[in-house]
């Protein structure tokens, strides 16, 4: 019997306690036009991004009436305070991980000056044996709202641990 087969479960007591419980809210700095422009340039590179993301005059003629951010724009990038990062990950069974994917549902667009608040909770998990051995698929729910309390987006991220 291998070490991996000896692990009965990857679910921890901490996970059981955290399931469904919203964590502390985070507040992003106000969104600036330059943030949106740079995001659009980077994500469309090497092509020119759509005018909606950088041309005020063009954007004023759209149904939004002003520049809005691409839907994948992340106002939480570049925080002053950040948790320590573990580089390279672990090679130990049960502690190896990867990004499984995500589903995002969108509400109102993000605009210049918006202040986005985020909250996160562990939604649930599914544990089963795969070709990787005992594998756990965790679902993390992240919800964003703007300063008016309007829903901006909900992301369900799937993390894979094995």
């Amino acid at each position: 019997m291998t070490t991996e087969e000896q692990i009965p479960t990857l679910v921890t007591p901490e996970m059981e306690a955290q399931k469904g419980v919203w964590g502390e809210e985070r507040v992003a700095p106000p969104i600036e036009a330059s943030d949106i422009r740079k995001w659009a340039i980077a994500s469309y590179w090497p092509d020119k991004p759509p005018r909606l993301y950088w041309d005020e005059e063009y954007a004023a003629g759209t149904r939004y009436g002003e520049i809005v951010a691409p839907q994948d724009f992340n106002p939480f990038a570049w925080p002053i305070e950040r948790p320590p990062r573990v580089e390279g990950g672990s090679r130990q069974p049960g502690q190896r991980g990867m990004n499984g994917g995500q589903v995002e549902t969108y509400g109102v667009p993000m605009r210049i000056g918006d202040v986005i608040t985020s909250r996160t909770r562990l939604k649930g998990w599914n544990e089963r044996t795969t070709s990787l051995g005992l594998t756990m698929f965790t679902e993390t729910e992240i919800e964003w709202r703007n300063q008016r309390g309007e829903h901006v987006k909900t992301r369900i991220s799937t993390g894979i641990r094995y």
Partner: protein
Amino acid sequence: MPVNVTFDSLNVGDSIPEWSRETDFMNWNRYAAVNDEFVYIHMDDEAGKAALNEQGAFGMGNLRYTYMLNALRDWLGDEAEIRECGLQYRARNQKHDVLTVTGTVTEKATENGENLVRLELNVVNQDGDSTSPGHAVVVLD
């Protein structure tokens, strides 16, 4: 390009225009810069190899998600509504891969007065390998 596509103009089985990028450090580093996503496996070949990717550094999944949204936005137009989009990461984005977003209309429905179109999407590489099967729901007039 406010809205390029209408609900009535689409049929189940229709394909969306393909959207491609050749990816390398020029794309990855720019994306890392705006998303603050500086992770050695995406920056350094030795780190990529240490993470059991023989070809070295590899691209970030989030950028593939961005490409999927870009493909939808370029097809639909600025003012069409993308309600939902999602994908799974099934394979790595290697340096110099040519990634292409593909999509097919799988369902049309009118619910609560909204015209919803569901699409099956994917990001395939230059060999035709699926790297990121996904889906989207868009709202059209």
